[in-house]
């Protein structure tokens, strides 16, 4: 078939399409490669260099050594791991409970409660009132605590809606028979519904995990103590507020500027590599997540 309706115009189109795609891949990847090359470059040579970079200039691990000396990189990593792990577990559990409730049948107050939950997707009190609620919460227990980065953002209504539609697809008969055997709601939720909605749960876990990993703004308004900064806020200090002093001590003034450039690139690699390593394996779940969200979003 294909050979019959092939024309010269199509061949030309196919060639241009391929070229365009290769160019697109280059444009997407090159900034990342540049960062990697720069991070391994010799600081002095990199500073003197101008233009594109196709390989590291010389080879030096000094920038990485220096980056790991930054006290906040290590503590930031640990704080972020805590937030991602604990935050994701709590978020998924609470979201699952909400989704379970909303997917039940014959619950009288379900509609008004669903309305109140959905309403928050369209209207919110805004930044400042939320700030005061979190700051003054129970006499200020959240302020300057890592919990301020978990508790106030625990449930994403969007994720809740996605999870509900995942739960709603489970046939009632399974839960019915469990109930006849005397199972309570908690048992049904954790032993039947969650295992059956595994694909949806995986997607929600990833969504929450990535959101906690990327979050920096709340930390910038609720956290004062440097030791409690999550990784992204430390990155902001280093990359956007240009604070590399912590890592350049013992280097003489002339080299300081040079090394602080390569340190920045090393920091980017350190902070991004873990995500990029796991991404190819999780890609299909993320893609699935877009589909599930699209059906209901």
């Amino acid at each position: 078939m294909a050979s019959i309706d092939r024309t010269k115009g199509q061949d030309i189109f196919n060639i241009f399409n391929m070229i365009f795609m290769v160019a697109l891949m280059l444009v997407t990847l090159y900034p990342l490669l540049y960062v990697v090359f720069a991070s391994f470059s010799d600081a002095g040579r990199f500073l003197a260099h101008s233009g594109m970079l196709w390989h590291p200039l010389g080879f030096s691990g000094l920038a990485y050594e220096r980056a790991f000396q930054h006290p906040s990189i290590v503590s930031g990593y640990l704080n972020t791991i805590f937030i991602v792990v604990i935050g994701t577990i709590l978020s998924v559990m609470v979201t699952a409970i909400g989704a379970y409730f909303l997917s039940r049948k014959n619950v009288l107050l379900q509609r008004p409660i669903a309305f109140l939950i959905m309403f928050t997707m369209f209207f919110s009190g805004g930044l400042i009132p939320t700030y005061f609620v979190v700051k003054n919460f129970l006499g200020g227990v959240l302020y300057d605590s890592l919990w301020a980065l978990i508790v106030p953002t625990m449930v994403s209504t969007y994720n809740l809606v996605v999870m509900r539609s995942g739960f709603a697809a489970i046939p009632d008969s399974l839960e019915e028979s469990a109930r006849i055997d005397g199972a309570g709601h908690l048992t049904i939720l954790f032993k039947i519904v969650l295992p059956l909605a595994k694909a949806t749960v995986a997607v929600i876990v990833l969504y929450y995990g990535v959101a906690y990993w990327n979050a920096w703004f709340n930390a910038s308004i609720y956290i004062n103590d440097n030791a409690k900064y999550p990784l992204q806020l430390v990155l902001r200090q280093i990359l956007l507020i240009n604070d590399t002093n912590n890592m350049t001590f013992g280097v003489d003034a002339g080299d300081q500027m040079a090394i602080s450039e390569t340190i920045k690139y090393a920091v980017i690699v350190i902070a991004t590599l873990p995500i990029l390593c796991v991404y190819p394996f999780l890609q299909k779940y993320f893609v699935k997540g877009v589909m599930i969200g699209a059906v209901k979003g």
Partner: protein
Amino acid sequence: MATQAVHDAAKSSKLSSAGKILASDLRRNYSLYLLMIPVFLFYFLFMYRPMYGAIIAFKDFNPADGIWGSPFVGLDNFRKFWDSMYRNRVFFNTLKISFSTLIFGFPAPIILALLINELRSKIFTKSVQTITYLPHFISLVVVCGMIKDFTTETGIINDIIKVFGGTPTTMLNNPRYFVPIYVISDIWQGIGWGSIIYLAALSGIDAELYEAARIDGAGRWRQTLSITIPSIIPTIITMLLLRVGQMMNIGYEKIILLYNPLTYESADVISSFVYREGLQNFQYSYSTAVGLLNSLINFVLVFGANILSRKFNDTSLW
């Protein structure tokens, strides 16, 4: 008189029967409601309490006096914003950035999906997808850090500009470059990820349609125009409406990572203005008023977009 009494009796019996239904529902489902307590608490404490707190927009809020104790000032805070020189600037910038991302950023993933759909090699398709999805997983702080480094006077973008005879400048300090930088980086981040939804729509097209068109002698271009594009129009419209609903809702995160006082004139949007006035200049009531105004506009836009979306095809948020 008599009819009134009958009416009242009917009403009260209706009420008491409603009460009975509620009581029996609570008895039957009490464990389910108990289970929901964490969810109720979350929404009450972190969603509805701030909505109550938003009344400081109508007060001269002072944290020491609390929300209730602060003096009521009516619409003064709104008036202050209306009369200020910032009103036009932040509204105009919000619209400008919204429209620019809409015009350039919205069609990009559609075009990419159509082009990917024409690729014949499976491995090639897979690599294009994997690579173009990648930037979606790089954190915003890192993306902005890269933008900042690449656009400095000695950064790689200026190195390239120099080759073509331009003069290098620190681009993030120039208000003229802010919107292009914002939009281009947005496309870089989102083009691949955004194409997923359209690829899904494309893969759902019935292959028999193409078969029939081929028998009728339609070439690939004709097939694209008459089958492919019309088939994904519903998806495009839905996505477009969702986008329009978010029109006035430019987030502050990327803006405040990239802007600085030199570029406020073209970069400062409503949400970043609220952030700065509220949390950096401590104008709590004033910034809450501006935020509330923005929330109301958003509410109307999202609501409208949803109604339209439901009209065009059966997709809506609820």
